[in-house]
């Protein structure tokens, strides 16, 4: 199975959560203009739903990294059956 592009890096989850915390702090500021606060609110709601989606979209996968010739890598799925290991 070929490596897929790092799609997770695009809307980095951690940065999104940090941004959410920032938005909460900014909204605490009572001097905010209404339009700005609405923008913040919308951004916050979009971010949360996107983060929730990221959590739910993650696909369960276990693979093994194998080294090919010339330093290239390939990942291959590991069968899901649980072989009892000695320890």
């Amino acid at each position: 199975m070929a490596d897929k592009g790092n799609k997770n890096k695009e809307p980095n989850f951690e940065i999104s959560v940090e941004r959410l915390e920032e938005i909460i702090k900014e909204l605490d500021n009572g001097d905010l203009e209404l339009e700005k606060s609405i923008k913040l609110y919308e951004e916050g709601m979009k971010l949360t739903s996107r983060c929730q989606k990221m959590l739910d979209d993650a696909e369960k996968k276990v693979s093994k990294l194998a080294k090919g010739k010339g330093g290239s890598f390939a990942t291959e799925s590991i069968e899901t059956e649980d072989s009892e290991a000695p320890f």
Partner: protein
Amino acid sequence: MKAVEVLFNPPEPLTVSELTSRIKVELESGFKSVLVAGEISNLRVVQNSGHTYFTLKDEKAQIKVVLWKRRRDYLNLKFKPSDGDQVIVRGSINVYQVQGVYQVNVEYIEQAGLGALLAAYKELEKKLATEGLFELERKRSLPLIPWTVGVVTSQDGAAFRDIRSTIERRFPGIHIILRSVKVQGEGAGLQIAEAISDLNKHGNSEVIIAGRGGGSIEELWAFNEEIVVRAIANSKIPIVSAVGHETDFTLSDQAADKRAATPTAAAEIIVPKKDDIHKQLDSHSDQIWKRMLYFIETKSQTVDDISEKLQSLIKEKIKFRKEKLFSTKRTIDMQSPEKRLSYKRGKLDRAYEDMSLRLKIILNSKKTQHMTVSASLLTKSLETYLNKQKNCLNNQLSRLKVINPTKILERGYAIVTSTDERKVYKFVGELIPGNDLKIRLQDGSRAVTVKGDKIMKQDNLFN
């Protein structure tokens, strides 16, 4: 010669048991208490009995050793005898006839200073520490959610199974990339170091777990090898070490960004519970929503306040303007022709009223004057008139006296009336026989009744 003799005239041969017995007696009486130093290897603790078996060795020889469970419990050792340990054992030689082996039966055992391995460990630790590989500043924080976790361990080990099940339980959906390696024995260190470097080159992993399940110090030794420690220190991807059990500490642990006591613990440290993250996100969006609501409420209140102020201000202004307008209008009205006219008219009216009042007063005073005059005149004339009337009345009375019917009665006439004197009968024809009548003469009247129906007509005397 003697040997031949033995061969051809042998005494009764000994049985194996007899021989072994003799050896046992010889050996056990000859080595009742020995003190021997050597390195432990092939140590195993038999599960059912709890007895410990190992081999003591040096460069050229080895001897079997047994440490009975009861003795071990009694000794309450300060260390856990493990392969590679340099130890000093005191005990007796014991022959195990069943297998024909002799062994040292341990009465006491102690560590013979630091083993070679431990010395090497200490030396390497010092060297790497001086290089700064274990510095706290080097340690990186772990990502909140590692979407892809690299694992360096043996595919068949319990460690991988634990890591995998823990990750899948806490956060289904995390991608696990295993780089399977030998975790003990010859070449294990090199493989582990390579695997770490490979996962770095591959680049997908956001965090790497390097480790293995529990074992003896020798079994865990690969994680004390310099090449592994350096590979961990050089990794661009944060590394969590998970070697053995809680009590096992390796140089890998010191170089890693985070040390986990066990592989399961490593997975728990790295991967959050998906439910927790969901809850956190929910609380974030909840907080944002609440703040927004609060924000809108306060803003709308401000708007209300302002609009109220504005309204009252405007009302005041309007009132003020109105008043001003009204007063202006009044002044203008005063100046208007009609107003002026009506004002003048009013003035005129008042003047007129005034005048007529004065006139009336004057007139009244004239009238009363006039009246008194005319009254005296009137009284006078009235008196003459009254006198005149009186005279006239007196005349009439005397005349009346003359024509009084009673005077006629005095002369012998009678008046016939009805009994109630209402009707005066003037003709004989009116009289009906039987009727009651009244007859009046000059001195009074008397009731009479009409008698006889014969009417005697009489000619007028004066005709």
